């Protein structure tokens, strides 16, 4: 059984029919990439998995670890083991680096929340110190407001924040290298590889085919809301997919 399984997912934004029967499966421990050009439906796929509305999933199902999570709200999915690093590094810009990292670990118990002075006491996939080892620049900027970080640092924080969720099994990264300088792209890619080496399953959504294929084991190509090609990294590299991808 696959860790994540999309079966004929049709997703709509109001009257627009965006995903037209997307089916894909990701096994535990894999690094899978989802490629496609602008408007192919990549982010809609992420949002359909993450339980964010819109889009509305009208038919098909999303199964995670055997459980149908199609209708689950976003916060339950996040607490249930799927971490999303959204497109465009969506941080809480007014909060500090450390506060961003602490948010995910807030206990769900009301009374404990009011009583507890400290934060970050809840369980999480990776401790703050481990994340600072992974992204040393975040430690230097721990007390700084997230909005004042550079693009690369914001992306690192966005990934690090997601890794603070408890019992994370699957990491969804929506265009993590978008708009970053080339050497930062490599640094972020290396970090994703290291996260995958720790046993986390990764779904990497990318327009940057080169970087995606460097990291991934295999991949899917999405075009006009449908999977048009799937294969291993080698197959994807050798196949002529220019029709579907902007390189």
């Amino acid at each position, binding site marked *: 059984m696959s860790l994540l399984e999309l079966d004929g997912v049709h997703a709509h934004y109001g009257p627009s029919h965006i995903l037209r029967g997307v089916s894909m499966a990701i096994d535990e421990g894999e690094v899978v990439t989802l490629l496609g050009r602008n408007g192919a439906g990549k982010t809609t796929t992420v949002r359909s998995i993450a339980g964010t509305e819109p889009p509305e999933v009208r038919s098909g199902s999303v199964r995670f670890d055997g459980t149908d999570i199609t209708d689950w*709200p976003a916060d339950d999915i996040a607490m249930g083991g799927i971490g999303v690093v959204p497109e465009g590094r969506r941080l*809480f810009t007014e909060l500090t680096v450390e*506060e961003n990292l602490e948010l995910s670990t807030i206990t769900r118990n009301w009374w404990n929340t009011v009583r507890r002075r400290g934060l970050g006491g809840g369980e999480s996939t990776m401790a703050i110190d481990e994340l600072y080892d992974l992204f040393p620049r975040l430690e230097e900027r721990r007390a700084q407001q997230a909005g004042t970080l550079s693009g690369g640092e914001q992306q690192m924080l966005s990934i690090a924040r997601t890794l603070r969720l408890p019992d994370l099994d699957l990491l969804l990264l929506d265009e993590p290298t978008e708009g970053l300088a080339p050497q930062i792209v490599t640094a972020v890619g290396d970090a994703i590889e290291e996260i995958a080496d720790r046993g986390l399953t990764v779904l990497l959504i990318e327009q940057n085919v080169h970087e995606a294929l460097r990291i991934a084991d295999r991949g899917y190509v999405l075009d006009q809301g449908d999977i048009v090609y799937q294969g291993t990294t080698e197959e994807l590299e050798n196949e002529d997919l220019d029709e579907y991808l902007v390189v």
Partner: protein
Amino acid sequence: MSTDNAQPDVEDESSLISVDAWDRIKHTERFVFLISVAFVLTFSYLFSRAPVISDVTQGYHGLTVTILIWSIFALGFNLLLGQTGLLSFGHAMFFGTASYATALFSIHVFNEPLTIVIVGMLSAIALGAVAAVILLRLHTVYFAIVALAIGQFLYFLASNPLEGITQGINGLEVDRTPLLGVVDLDHEYGGILGALVVDNLYLFVGVFFVAVVMFITRIRKSPYGLIFKAIRENETRASFVGLDVWRYKFAAFLLSAGIAGIAGALLAVNTQFAGVERLYWSISGDVVVMAVLGGLGTLAGPVIGTFVWFYFKGIVNGFPTLGDYWLLMLAVSFTAVVWAYPEGIWGMITDLTAALREPKTLAAKVKSRVTGGSSTEGSNGGDR
């Protein structure tokens, strides 16, 4: 600098404690407690009876009680708008409903000040739970307008169909009974205590004021403060980090309603009256002005805003000739303050004190503010 340094650091000859130490101290809960107690103890005296000062302010004791009560209301309103970014134009519903519940309970069930205030608060929380189910589905202007509509609905409900219960525009009377059956609220003290607080009613309201300030401080310093800030910035992002946004907005809504309810109940005890005008939309508008004028999202802001508002209404109003224009003058001051300082009067004060530490930046800052330099960066881009 070590945080366990008990000795104040001497920075230069002009300051007793260093700026860093002061910044640390002023954010502790104990400091907030001491300041709010000191404020309650000296406010009435300074405003209405202190030599020289009170000649200038021309205040009177009764007004200080009203200001404390409305400050509680503004603090409750600010908890919702300032912390979670939900702008309610219908907070009079909690204020007025709590007032009625307090009066009705005192008339029909049991009349003891503490009990009826708690009943008033609980009634506001109950109303908040119902209103939240409708309101929290809505965003931005829809939230504000529907809140206003619910408030007006209750106003008309209370003034006409339920006239038999509420006595319509005549209102209900709340008899004054001893607190816990022992303490006479009208008892006036002599000596220093009398000079400071005058009577037990002021103390009764003052204790609630300090309690509400401390409760809000606790909320702001707890993880809730961080969660509310995160939700205010972006709800979608908050759900991605596993936060159940609805649940926390619901919590903030109930807390805000409850605090507004305390204010409404205290006003019923203070004025010995509960009337339909407390449900009216203009009450909701007043509290918005108070909170925004003083400074949203801060503790001192709503209190300062309430003070200024009542100063105009109660004191400037009485000035010969000029007095007739008190509302106009308030409106002009409001516009001027909010134009130059979107963070309100408290933002103006903190800006000035910060600038006094570095006088060079003061001129540049004032200039950029007045000429409309970029102040706050909007970060509410949709996560679509």
